[in-house]
């Protein structure tokens, strides 16, 4: 039995799955793009680092030249080490487009390294003029490195131009995809919700209709609900109730009939029939009674009562008694007597 609860859980599950799929999809796509972005950014950072480190090395060299001591020397050595590290890192940036510039850049860093070394060597040998000349060279080389870094970055930008445009296009596509999937999920959800609500409200409507029929005293209509949930269970119970009531009612009526016959047999005394109008009032279903009485009395309605579904041969009211002209009052009035006269009488 798929209960309503199950259906609701199913709905929740579908919503969750859809959300999960959308989320996963978007995160995955973004991740792809982000990784590529990171790769490129890494390149820029490394290029910039090379440029910065060469400037720092020259600054350290300058400090050392101004006042050569051990501490300055250590910081210069550190700067040169960092410069070499940066140079080694540049080798990984090689691609088909930038081979020329990158080779220039790396060689410039080597040249700077040389110039720094020579400056230190010459200043150690008290050769001030030459050391100054090499210092000037080192400073110029650092400038060239910055410049080459700029051209490398510029070159990189134009080399990756199509890529960047692709990425932009891609993010637009992903946004579009998000909306499309949202729309799709929305439609599926709507369809599902419609189906679910229909599965609940339809049987309830049927049940309500059946209850209304019942309240009008028509017990011969089986309550038919095809679903397989709580409502169906309710409907079946309701149907059983209807059958029970119907049986009960038939039984009572039979009894009443029997009693009436018994009453009539002993004497056709005039006092007796006076009790007859009271009889219907004793029935728990006066309306039904009236309807039943009217059944034979109004010939035009007879045809409809001969429906095949009258399995139990129960008298069937076609129309609610209230809607009938005259109604109950007519049944109870004096002139109603002959009309509802028992055919068997």
């Amino acid at each position, binding site marked *: 039995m798929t209960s309503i609860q199950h259906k609701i859980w199913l709905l929740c599950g579908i919503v969750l799955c859809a959300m999960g799929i959308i989320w996963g999809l978007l995160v995955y*796509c973004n991740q*792809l793009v982000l990784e*590529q972005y990171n790769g490129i950014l890494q390149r820029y950072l490394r290029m910039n680092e090379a440029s910065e480190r060469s400037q720092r090395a020259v600054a350290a060299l300058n400090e050392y030249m101004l006042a050569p001591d051990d501490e300055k020397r250590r910081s210069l050595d550190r700067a040169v080490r960092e410069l070499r590290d940066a140079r080694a890192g540049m080798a990984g940036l*090689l*691609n*088909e*487009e*930038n*081979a*020329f510039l*990158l*080779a*220039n*850049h790396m*060689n*410039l860093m*080597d*040249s*700077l390294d040389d110039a720094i070394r020579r400056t230190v060597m010459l200043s150690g040998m008290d050769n001030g003029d030459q050391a100054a000349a090499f210092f000037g060279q080192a400073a*110029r*080389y650092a400038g*060239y490195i910055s*410049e*080459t870094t700029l051209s490398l970055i510029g070159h990189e930008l134009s*080399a*990756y131009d*199509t*890529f960047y*445009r*692709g*990425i932009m296009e*891609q993010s637009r*596509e*992903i946004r*579009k*995809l998000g909306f*499309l*999937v949202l*729309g*799709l999920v929305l*439609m599926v959800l709507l*369809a599902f919700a419609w189906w679910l609500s229909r599965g609940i409200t339809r049987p309830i409507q049927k049940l309500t209709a059946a209850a209304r029929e019942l309240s009008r005293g028509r017990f011969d209509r089986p309550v038919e609900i095809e679903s397989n949930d709580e409502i169906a269970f309710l409907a079946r119970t309701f149907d059983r109730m209807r059958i029970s009531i119907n049986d009960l009612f038939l039984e009572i009526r039979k009894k009443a009939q029997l009693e009436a016959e018994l009453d009539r047999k002993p004497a056709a005394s005039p006092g007796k029939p006076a009790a007859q109008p009271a009889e219907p009032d004793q029935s728990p279903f006066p309306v039904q009674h009236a309807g039943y009485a009217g059944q034979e009395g109004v010939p035009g309605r007879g045809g409809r009562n001969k429906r095949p579904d009258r399995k139990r041969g129960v008298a069937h009211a076609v129309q609610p008694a209230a809607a009938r002209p005259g109604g109950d009052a007519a049944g109870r009035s004096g002139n109603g007597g002959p009309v509802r006269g028992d055919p068997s009488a």
Partner: protein
Amino acid sequence: MRRLLIGFLCAAFFAISAMTIQTLGRVFSFDAPVPAASREPMDKPRIVLISRERDTPFWRELERGAFEAAGRHGVQLQAWGSFGLYEADFLRNLELAIASRVDGIIAQGLDNDDFKKLTAIRAAENGIPVITVGSDVPVAESMRRTYVGSDHRAAGRLVAERLAEDLGGAGRVVVLTSERPEHFERERLAGILSVTERFDGIVVETASSGSANDELARVVRDRLNAHPDTKAFVSVAYHNAGVIAREIGRRFRAADFCLYAFDENPETVQLLRDGILRGIVAQDPYRMGEWSVSLMVRWLDGVDLPLDMDGYFTDIRLLTREAMP
């Protein structure tokens, strides 16, 4: 009505599904062209072509030839250059190329001490071969491997022969040089003099002027004031022939003068068509670029050792009005 609605919703559903699948396909087949990372060593020779006049048609043509040759030989070539005649930028580019330890430098010769120091000491120290192109600097001073370009002495002779013919063997000629005549100017002048000395009637005097137009105009004016009988002007430097012609045109009919130019560019060609210039020396910059790169490659490959120190001369010819289409 209801059926219509359901039909419409179904259609919308399928449309959205189709679009989703399509977009999904596009998103996942995304493959932006990233320059392929190459791990192979950078063993292609790197050659730099450095000029002082990138903006001239002459140099553009030279670059075209150089790049075509570079493509053919599978070497990496970059053209660096400053616009205008900024020597500082040019020398800076040269030093940058040396510090970048390129495999070869093809440079326009610049006849000054800084250039010579860079090529003869710094480039030689780093083992970088230098080829001069277009204009030369004597090998003893620059240690260049070779020179590729016009034979400027021959060009001077070519002009002078035509000049002597136009003057009928007699007349006063002013040869304009720049303030510090470069090697190619001296060569052109020597070429001119080697012809004119054969004619007793031709008097050659030299005047120097910077490349600024007003200075040039002033120098021309001075010469005309000093010697109103001047019959011919020849500039062997980067002088604007149009300025000379205009200055002469203030007093005389410029067409009566014998004016010659050593560089072919749209302006001089127009002046030639107009009958103001008598002749232009046409060089072959395309061949210069092509040849210089080929020679550099041969040098780097060790095929031609040594290169011809005297240089490799490209064709020159004199464009005259009669020869113009």
